[in-house]
């Protein structure tokens, strides 16, 4: 079996792991057939496959049928490092799971692992309405990589957590996004991704949360977890690229249509109005902020203390890596602030780095508008807006962060979040475009193709 699984973890010489994966792999393929992109199993897709960890190795392009994709197990090359934060600073990183942190590590890995297959499930039906072969190919690329990330987490569970880990790896394949009986663990990963605007927003905001979670785990004292997530980060960048440039291309297209027509309600002209894009942003940004967990979290403190999850780029931060002193000041809408001991505020700190990153993305979108002489600007809603998790949960405030009554909020929802009517109008635009080099009318073509191929390259060869 192992000859089919590209890896750099000596799979051949590890009987325990071989046994585990021998039963897990068929289940995984079954999951893929059930939950993955349907009806494209026999199509040949121009995909990037990671076959090694060198620069050439992880960007190997070729036509592949997705079920034959070589999902591999890769750890970034070992680097000389010490545990960089928490209660064990400057100790050697762990090569095995310490018993005292088993439960915390298991929870962190299961929670992260659960998100990977979820997005494949959420995108299940999108292929049938892809705006171009380029976008369809990127969707598939993203899905096989989410699948590989699932492999990465399943590997850790199999390799380091015994029978319990194997069962958890099975459960990762059993839960289903949005399932009435067995939903995924985190809310945003059960939210339906109903159209391509959802999908791009998901890539921009939810996958970006993934980047920050992985970055925090890349600092981990458990070396295999650190190495796994470092390698995953290289792939995650592409997911965010898809999301961010997807919305950027929508915005560009809308701006062009607005300029040409002189109108802002561009639905009738086959484009997506900027107000609608803003509503999608409001929805997915707030949903993704919830993924960071509560701003004041004893779990986060425990993970930091144990050295399991650091801050963003912890080892590069010129700061006190024990974080025992100091407080995080959390601004509350309507004035006032909550003081949170630093270690308990690790989720909030990670989120702050994320918010800055999102802000940069927004700037690039707005530049498209500026360059095309459109006055409208997209904005991130206030971090307290529409929250269901953490200290802002249940507060009712406007996207600008102004506290309002529950009644006012109920009334405002239709102004701030996508309504069913608007979704229906977006859905009406979602017609597939499968002719090489052609793009749907609601989205602009990208500046360049994949792997320096031309835009009219046949990225997907239908069977």
């Amino acid at each position: 079996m192992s000859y089919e699984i590209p890896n750099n973890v000596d799979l051949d010489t590890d009987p325990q792991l071989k046994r585990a994966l021998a039963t897990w792999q068929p289940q995984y393929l079954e999951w893929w057939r059930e939950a993955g992109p349907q009806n494209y199993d026999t199509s040949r897709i121009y995909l990037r496959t990671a076959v090694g960890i060198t620069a050439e190795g992880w960007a190997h392009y070729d036509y592949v049928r997705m079920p034959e994709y070589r999902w591999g197990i890769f750890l970034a090359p070992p680097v000389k490092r010490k545990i960089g934060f928490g209660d064990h600073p400057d100790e050697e990183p762990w090569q095995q799971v310490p018993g005292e942190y088993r439960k915390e590590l298991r929870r962190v890995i299961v929670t992260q692992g659960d998100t990977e297959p979820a997005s494949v499930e959420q995108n299940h039906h999108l292929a049938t309405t892809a705006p171009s072969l380029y976008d369809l190919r990127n969707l598939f690329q993203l899905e096989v990589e989410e699948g590989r990330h699932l492999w990465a987490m399943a590997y850790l569970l199999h390799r380091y957590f015994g029978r319990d880990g194997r069962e958890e790896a099975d459960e990762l394949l059993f839960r289903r996004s949005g399932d009435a009986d067995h939903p995924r663990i985190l809310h945003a990963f059960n939210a339906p991704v109903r159209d391509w605007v959802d999908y791009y927003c998901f890539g921009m905001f939810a996958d970006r949360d993934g980047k920050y979670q992985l970055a925090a785990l890349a600092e981990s004292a458990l070396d295999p977890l650190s190495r796994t997530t470092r390698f995953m980060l290289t792939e995650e960048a592409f997911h965010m690229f898809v999301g961010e440039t997807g919305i950027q291309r929508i915005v560009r297209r809308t701006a062009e249509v607005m300029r040409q027509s002189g109108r802002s309600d561009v639905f009738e002209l086959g484009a997506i109005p900027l107000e609608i894009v803003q509503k999608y942003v409001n929805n997915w940004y707030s949903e993704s902020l919830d993924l960071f967990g509560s701003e004041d979290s004893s779990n986060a403190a425990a993970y930091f203390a144990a050295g399991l999850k650091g801050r963003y780029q912890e080892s590069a931060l010129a700061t006190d890596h024990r974080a025992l002193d100091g407080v995080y000041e959390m601004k509350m809408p309507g004035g006032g602030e909550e003081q949170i001991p630093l270690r308990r505020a690790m989720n909030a700190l990670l989120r702050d780095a994320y918010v800055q990153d999102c802000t940069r993305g927004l700037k690039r979108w707005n530049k498209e508008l500026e360059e095309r002489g459109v006055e409208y600007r997209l904005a991130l809603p206030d971090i307290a807006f529409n929250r269901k998790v953490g200290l802002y949960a249940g507060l009712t405030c406007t996207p600008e962060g102004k506290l309002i009554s529950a009644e006012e909020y109920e009334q405002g929802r239709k102004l701030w979040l996508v309504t069913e009517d608007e979704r229906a109008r977006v859905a009406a635009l979602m017609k597939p475009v499968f002719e090489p080099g052609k793009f749907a009318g609601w989205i602009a073509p990208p500046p360049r193709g994949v792997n320096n191929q031309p835009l009219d390259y046949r990225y997907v060869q239908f069977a």
Partner: protein
Amino acid sequence: MDEISFETHPSRYRHLKFEAGADRAQLTLKVEETGGLRPNYLLKLNSYDLSVDIELADAVNRLRFEHPGVSVVTITGAIDGIFCAGANIFMLASSGHGFKVNFCKFTNETRLAIEEASAESGQRYVAALNGTTSGGGYELALACDEILLVDDRRSVVSLPELPFLGVLPGTGGLTRMVDKRKVRRDLADVFSTLAEGVRGERAVKWGLVDALLARSRFNELLEKRINELVACAEPGRAGRSGVVLDALEPSSTEDEIRYRHLTLKLDRRRRLAELLVAGPERVEPIPEHSTALSADWYPLRLFREIDDALLRLRFNYPEIGVVLVRSSGDLRRVLELERAVYERRNDYFVKETLLLIKRALKRMDLTAKSFFTLVEPDSCFGGFLFELALASDRCYMSTGRAAQIATGLLNRGALPMGNGLSRLRTRFLGQPDYADRLASERVYNAEEAFEAGLVTAIPDELDWEGEIRLAVDERLSLSPDGLTGMEANLRFPGPETMETKIFARLSAWQNWIFQRPNAVGPRGALKLYGQPERPEFDWART
């Protein structure tokens, strides 16, 4: 802290939704985060403090008196994905030792009341775990007859106290798991150290829950099961009318809490309290429809008052060391009432009243104060009221004119202790036949009572005041911890039951662990839970 009141009413609940129908009831936990007793913690994730448990205790009691038609009570949670996270850790970590112990004791008593309601009153409890259930939440479930867990591949049951906090489940969880549910000890061992808990099929297989309910059909499957259980109730039960429990609303001053039939006097300087019981003013026959007696019925009202006073003594007056139990009234009238109660003991309302008396007396058995009963010339300790003397650590009886006590048929077994025995049988552990012979109606003067072994000492009239004062002062000078331990050892001879085990383990182990630096020292696990630092243990096993 303000004095705690144990009186509440469903209309004032903040944490519990109380819905009672003709044949079934539902208690839904929706704990108000900011509704705790003290402001320095938030009751997140349906975690509880005493304020939640006071409502639960009230609900369980009211269901028995006010809704006797109910045969199935469902306890569930109103937060998505969470049933109950157990006792609030920040509340525990910021509470003094005495409060923690009393809190655990009270929650235990409520869990036992649930089990008693099932065994004696035909109200079966179903724990419908709609989400993750940990610690005290699972212990609450363990007190129910059936545990049904949502099957969503996420929700677990767990007892994470040891791995997370370095302490034990404080509400009988370990004992109930192996004693009541008969979970295998090695599996129980794994479960009790597995912070993340057990879910799904394994939870069923290990005997931790009875069945799984699919998430999408949770309510439907639950209702089906409730219907099945309701169908098992005795015919004619549904819709039976009960008795509304009115508020006790005692009037209180600095040194006195005055109820209708009971006065609690407090001498804080001496650390001495007095429970003064007033006998019944008249005895009416128990009517055909006994509920016509209403909550005004003397024995019910009196023992509700005693129960309330005991709880106040425990929580609000921790420094009171000795409680004198006195009574005044017509002993003959008490015996008349005793006979009437005994004759109608199988009537639903009379039986519920007896069960309430039983619980109040058990509350006294478990109260960490020294109780001395004083039998004086106008005392009326007869039959069920004589149980107060039997529950006391000592009983002094005056030889003065007309001081009398009386035994009655209710002393035979209608009001058993936690060990399952009557107080007389426990008192004369080696002579069960003698104990049963005593348990019939008879009036004793001091010499007769002393001879029969029913009282501790009979100082004569001239010595009375001096002897009592000396005995009390001497008692008050002893170590309170030593006394608590001694009394707990001496009060419960005889067989072990699940109940005695729960309290004994709580006193011996949990209270020990609660005191140890590994839990509550500056680097202890309980102290540091949720804090940025990790605990440091003294690794020596004791």
